């Protein structure tokens, strides 16, 4: 047992050719490569932003093209009542008709819907002595 330990301390382990191939090799990138990668990343980000902005503007432009045009402002139409009828404004027959309509409106509004005078009397319908 002591012979085993002493051998490992004294003699370095010699790797086989297969083991040499399988052993991982670590390489540290150079500063130029790092700068290149950073720059590439920035360019990619900028390109993505530009793409988003461009796409949004295209979408909005398309929507603007499909939206219906705003309605034309409504202008008050000129009075369609012919001015020639104003000569009848003081005509007695016209004034009578106007008064008849007003009287009718008054009669409609004053109609008694509840007819309280002829409502049935409140009585005890089944008078009993128990």
């Amino acid at each position: 047992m002591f012979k085993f330990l002493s051998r490992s301390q004294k003699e370095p382990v010699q790797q086989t050719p297969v083991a040499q191939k399988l052993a991982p090799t670590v390489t540290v990138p150079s500063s130029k490569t790092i700068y290149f990668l950073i720059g590439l990343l920035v360019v990619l980000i900028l390109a993505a932003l530009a793409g988003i902005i461009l796409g949004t503007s295209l979408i909005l432009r398309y929507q603007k093209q499909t939206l219906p045009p705003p309605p034309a402002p409504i202008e008050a139409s000129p009075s369609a009542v012919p001015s020639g009828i104003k000569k009848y404004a003081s005509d007695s027959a016209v004034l009578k008709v106007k008064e008849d309509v007003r009287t009718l409106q008054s009669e409609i509004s004053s109609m008694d819907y509840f007819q309280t005078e002829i409502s049935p009397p409140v009585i005890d319908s089944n008078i009993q002595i128990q």
Partner: protein
Amino acid sequence: MLLIRSLASLVLIALVVLFPSSVRADYQQAFSNYSAQYSQYRTVYSQFTVARSAYQTYRTLAAQNTAITSFRKVLQTRNALVSAYYDLLQEKLNTTPSVDPLDISAFGEINNNTKLWLKENNDKIAGSASIEDLNSVSSEFAQRYPQMLIDSKQTIGRVLLAQGTYLDNRLSYVTLEVKNFLTVLAQDNDVTILERGILQAQTKHDLYTQKHDQERQYFFPTDTYRLDNLDLLQGQQIAIAANQYLSESANYLLELIKNVTD
């Protein structure tokens, strides 16, 4: 019978047309009589409740006799009140414009039949000697009372329908006046805009007609079992809605006229 009814209707119409003040006086007289009977009923009923309470408390012979006398009196007073109320309804139909004379005579028969029944009930009251007999007679009135309520509500419905018909006739007359006026205007002017007012007024009138028919169906349904649930307030609300259309129709006519006068 039909000839007699027709003659009676003609006489009634003549009375209403020739002697309106006398017809109104009949209604006022009927209302005064009804009011007096109502007041008397309340007084007699309160006296009865005192006598009943005394009998139920003391159960003496004197209290029993007093209770029987009071019981008899309140039942007779109640019958008199109902009789006066039916007379009031009759006079209301007589004095309301546009009520069909056939409806007036039909209620007249109802009134007569009710009075006959009340007379029989009064005879039973007079012939009752005990509290039990009077309780039995009073129960007969209680069984008859729902039909009396239906008679009352349908009469009120008939008054409302007739008033609506009267206003509708007035509106038709005024609409015709306006149309005649537009015909004169159209000779020299383009009245297309004004004619739209007539169309709008007529549209509202058509809506009134539909509502009026609904009101009639409510107060006088073909299915008589619906009369048990006849709600006077609901019928009145239908009448209000119907006349609202009349009012709107009149408004359109007034706006049309104002285009000329204002």
